[in-house]
């Protein structure tokens, strides 16, 4: 496409740029918050896409002079012109977003990024493999595939596992917790290990192919990536990277691909075909 200016309309719906929107609700969901924002004119996101969000008031006033930049959040649901986000408080940005009260306003840019594609295919037998807050984009995918997706969710404990209740109309839902307080003791990847043979059989008899859609903390995602590679399983993973802009402008969010080049998580991802990815980086480790 070198040499031609893409002349498609904006993918973001009316108003193209950052929109100022009103918070409708913000409810606890275990240790997480479910934030609902009124977005009547925004484009409908596809599962796996995200938005850059900031509070219009009290953004930048936190300890440390942060947050400054907006924060990336996956759409967990989009319904009746409302965008839903499931948020875990991990630092100053998510702390402010978790504290938003109904009626407060947010700045929002989105939907952004590449959505799940293989998993959205009609021929896919979809396994949603999510860890903790990583279930957020998988909820949106489950909404797209009512009665068709098998959810395999892992959480730290029973409190976090309450978020699984947000998963509507899965074909099946299995839960694991690190402490064994709900469901099986272990991780979502262990649920997949146990479930795979049955899933392959069911898929084969329906003339379908198993596709894994995964999101979660880096160590879990890396375990999932390797497992899928070893078993030759089609998989799509939603990967996090520190972001500044979310629309490809800054080149800050790169991930190293398996063949050694860098890809921007915000425009080439956040959802990547598993086989394109190198080891999932864990900057905390």
């Amino acid at each position, binding site marked *: 496409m*070198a*040499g*031609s*200016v*893409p*002349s*498609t*309309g*904006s*993918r*973001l719906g009316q108003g*193209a*740029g*950052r929109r100022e929107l009103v918070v409708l609700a913000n409810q606890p969901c275990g240790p997480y918050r479910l934030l609902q924002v009124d977005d009547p004119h925004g484009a409908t996101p596809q599962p796996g896409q995200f938005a850059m969000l*900031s509070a219009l008031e009290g953004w*930048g006033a936190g300890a*440390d*002079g*942060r*947050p*400054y*930049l*907006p924060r990336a959040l996956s759409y967990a649901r989009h319904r009746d012109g409302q965008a839903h986000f499931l948020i875990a408080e991990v630092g100053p940005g998510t702390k402010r977003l978790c504290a938003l009260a109904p009626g407060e306003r947010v*700045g929002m*840019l989105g939907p*952004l990024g590449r959505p799940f594609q293989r998993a959205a295919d009609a021929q896919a037998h979809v396994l949603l493999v999510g860890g903790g807050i990583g279930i957020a984009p998988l909820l949106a995918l489950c909404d797209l595939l009512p009665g068709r997706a098998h959810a395999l969710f892992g959480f730290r404990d029973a409190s976090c596992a309450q978020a699984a209740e947000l998963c509507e109309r899965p074909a099946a839902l299995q839960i694991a917790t690190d402490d064994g307080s709900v469901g099986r003791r272990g991780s979502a990847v262990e649920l997949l290990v146990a479930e795979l043979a049955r899933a392959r059989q069911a898929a084969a008899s329906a003339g379908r192919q198993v596709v894994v859609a995964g999101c979660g903390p880096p160590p879990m995602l890396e375990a999932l990536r390797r497992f899928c590679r070893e078993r030759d399983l089609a998989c799509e993973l939603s990967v996090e*990277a*520190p*972001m*500044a*802009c*979310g*629309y*490809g*402008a*800054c*080149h*800050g*969010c*790169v*991930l*190293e691909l398996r063949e050694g*080049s*860098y890809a*921007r998580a915000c*425009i080439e991802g956040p959802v990547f075909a598993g086989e394109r990815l190198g080891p999932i*980086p864990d*900057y905390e480790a």
Partner: protein
Amino acid sequence: MPADRQGARPPVRISSAGALELCGIALAHPVINGSGTYDLRAALSVFGQALLDAMPFAAYVSKTITIAPRQGNPPPRLWESSAGLLNSIGLPNPGLRAYLEEELPLLEQLSVPLITNVMGADVDEIRELFEACSEQPAIAAVELNVSCPNVKDGLDIGSDPRTLHEVLRKTRAALSKPLIVKLTPNTADVAACAAAAEQAGADALSLINTLRAAAMRSDGRPWLGARSGGLSGPAIRPIALAQVAAVAERVQIPVIGMGGIQSARHARDFLAAGASVVAVGTESFRDPFLAARIAAELSGERALANFARSAAIAAPAPNRQGARRAGCEPARAETE
């Protein structure tokens, strides 16, 4: 330079019909982008026609182009600090040839003038970049990023006035277009560097680039993949203002001011400090169309403080070719 020169610049009103020029390039308003902060191809893929219809910048400055392609630095490349952003992007770019063949045809179609930002590690590289850009009608001006380690001693070419002067003196003739030198703020005396660049044939100066900075992980190791990076955003604005004022005080050529601009008020501060044009960088990450709103607000006011400076320089008034200048007639025309 008389100490009271700044005060001697009379405020000038520019009518909406009045043309603003930077080095002979007509600008619709005084807001452009900071190099490397607005990947246009990516932004077009996200915003589509809306971006072309509401192009936020009066001129588009490319990211830094080098002769050889660069992949950029290993991640992580970003760290948020107090009201600022550290980056160690590492100037990823496709290299000169691919830029000219693959990106230029896209940039050519923009409705605003194109400024190509380039960087070379020595005189030969810079000359090659200048010659290649001279041949391209689509390029209105070249901005030279001098925050580049010099092959000789590893110091940034732009951090020492004598080195900068020597490099520019040996390369300036290779460029047939206006030359903007993007000064580095990581130097002992930015005004001395500015004066050296002016003397060696720069037509305009831009500043500030990012300030060298680092951040640590909780275990004490550097966070950024490249260990250190550059700080931008609101945190650097007061420093940028001081450097812009010091440079504007020292040189006759126009100054493009940037560093943490978030609003029309901030833009006015830079214009008041002596900038003719301002650039928005990091703030576009928060709001991709912010620059357009700043420009609209400034244009609405009509009285743009920067034109004061230009007018003072372009005096005696109904000046050369009768155009209203934003102080941007190439200085070379006078000094050479």
